[in-house]
């Protein structure tokens, strides 16, 4: 084999290996970036909004705790409803960002409990009927 061909072959092998190395690096960096984006958009945002919904819940429970809430019933009701809406929005975001069956199940259970509690609390703002 001629020296020219040998050089061509050798440098082709080296170039191929170098290209493979570079491509592998590129793929690894691309995958890592994708994971970072998904991690931020998914679990990280989900847990933030979940923690936000929990904080909002604690604020709403505090509002509804006797003696600690607002004085005027109508204003309390408005605040309570606003907090409920905020909590619903946060959970909605959690649902959108986290596509996981277990999380969906836990989210659905949490929404049910919140709904049960909010329904129960909202009964308190309805006018009482006099027993006849």
């Amino acid at each position, binding site marked *: *084999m*001629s*020296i*020219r061909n*040998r050089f061509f072959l*050798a440098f082709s*092998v*080296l170039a191929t*290996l*170098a290209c*493979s*190395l570079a491509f*592998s*690096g590129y*793929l*690894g*960096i691309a*995958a*890592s970036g994708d*994971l*970072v984006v*998904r*991690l931020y958009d*998914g*679990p*990280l945002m*989900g*847990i933030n909004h*979940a*923690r936000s*919904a*929990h904080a909002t*819940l*604690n604020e709403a*429970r505090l509002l*509804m*705790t*006797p*003696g600690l809430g607002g004085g005027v*019933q109508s204003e309390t009701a408005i605040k309570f409803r606003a907090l409920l809406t905020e909590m619903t929005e946060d*959970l909605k975001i*959690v649902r959108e960002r*986290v596509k*996981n069956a*277990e*999380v969906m199940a*836990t*989210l659905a*259970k*949490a929404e*049910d*409990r*919140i709904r*049960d*509690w*909010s329904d*129960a*609390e909202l009964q*308190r703002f309805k006018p009482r009927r006099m027993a006849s």
Partner: protein
Amino acid sequence: MKGQVPFSATQKSNDAATALDDLVETVAAYGFGYRMEAEAAVSGARATLLALAIGTTLVGIMLAISFSYSMSKPISEATQVAERVAAGNFTDQIASHRRDELGRLLRSLATMQSHLKTRADHDCAMMAKLDAALNNMKLGVCMFGPDNRLILWNDLYLKMYRIPAGRIFVGSTLEQMLEARKAAGTNYRDLGQYDAKLQTAVETRSPDSLTAELVDGRIVNIAYQPVENVGWVSTHEDITDRTQNEARIAHLAFHDPLTELPNRAAFGNYLAETFQSASAGNETFALLCIDLDRFKEINDVYGHSAGDRFLKEIGRRLTVACDGAFLARLGGDEFTIVLSGGTQPAAAEELCERLSSVVDTPVRIDDYDVDGSFTVGVSIFPQHGSDVDSLVANAEAALYRAKAEQRGTIRFFEPAMDRHIREKRVLQGEIALALERNELELHFQPQAVSGGEVFGFEVLVRWRHPVRGMVSPGIFIPLAEETGLIGGIDEWVLREACREAASWPNPLSIAVNLSPIDFRRGDIPAMILSVLLETGLSPNRLEIEITEGVLIDDFERAIGILRKIKNLGVRVAMDDFGTGYSSLSYLQAFPFDKIKIDQSFVAKIGKNAQASAIIHAIVGLGRALELPVIAEGVETEEQLAFLVKEGCNEVQGYLIGRPQPIAQYRQVVAEFVGTSEMAAMAS
């Protein structure tokens, strides 16, 4: 029931809080899964990259090692081969079976090595030839570089200057070379001249040469020749011999090699200078022409070597006698003296007296005392000639007059001699015109047997001059021989005689005389053949008569010519037999067809016993040699009777018939007639 929290609401709020806590934990757990997945992906990529990096490095190292072994080693070998070739080693074998570029490179190197070896061999051969040429040159050669340092030289240079090998070397300076010559004792006698020439030639870079003398006496010619882009070359030629030869040649150009006296050329120059000087200074000088008497006899009797020694001795004695006067040998036995200064003719007469004593004492050659004498002719400037030619001519005229009158005498020029010479010159001029003017005519003298039967004629030429009348052959033939006109005359005589004889009904023979001068010039046999072919005469009817003078000058050549004539079928007769002193040897050397007794002997028949004895001897000689003998000049019956008695059967003379135009013998050539009738016609 405001202010009171129902138990169920509280419970429900706790449940909701718990559910949200579960949600947070579940989402966190989900996020941790992501984190684990990302970590795994990064680890995988890192491992892949690391593996690829290690693999690439390893492959690179392996390729480097492979290339190192497969390429650098052969390249190193090729480099070594190239270095060996560059160093001039062409003997190593370069072999490569590789098929790549290195293989081609090595094969190319092998080819290049072969070519270089061929070129080197060729260069070596050329160098050997150049070396051989250089060392076989007749010149010493040195080549110098632009820095004036020695580049090459040849053996002859070393030999010429006797410089030991190794004394000079490549790079030697001019000073070192001069030192080497100085040590060898071959330096230049005039170093200043050499240095100046060399300096000029080197500085101006122009060819130059000089002739220098070495301290050992040799003479060397040195030439400087600049060479483009090289330096300059000097060639050295030992011209000692040549210079001596040139000096010798220059000497010989103006000197006679035998006597070392000045020769004719030197005499001419000296005479011209003396004449000019004398003319300018109103001076006088004498010119003496000297002719040794009977020198030819000395040559013939004692031999040419003895003759040469005689001449040398006479030259020496004349030199002494001249006492400073200019003496020259003009050739043969001719000398001349130019005597300037003194009062003429007294000084010339005094010199002549001294010259007379030169031959008082015989010249001793081998065991013989050789007597000599000379005849002198003298002319004086300005009395005897106003120019060089007339002076010489007049001195010669005086000499001829002295020789004619009495040998061994001295004659001064006289005006009467001049008149004789002028007359002679006029006659010579008229001879030249005689042929053109048809003034020559042929006379025929019959030759007969003793019984009277004419068998032929001797052809004789006569000159009928329009003013002088009949001019004697004894006068104009010698003049014609002097001027060289005899050749044309003899050819005319031969042609006309042959034409005449060819017209005769009676086939008689003719005898034609040829001069010795004819044998020195031209091709006689060819001329005779041409005439015979032209006239149609049978060769056996022609007889050529020669005298021994033909044989004296150049014997071998003359014999050769006579043989050619005889081969034509023409007969050859010896004329004037008995008057010479070596005729017998000529008879032995050449088979003559006839000998002719000179008329001087015939005329003395009955008056001189010696003459009769000579005739008796000649006739006896002819009988012994079986040669016909004819006697010429027979005028009386007594002479005829004596000749018949002696046995001479052929005669010619007035008794038979006078030389006359052929018209007088018309009947003889028409038919045979007897002696008595011939005599009647002749009278």
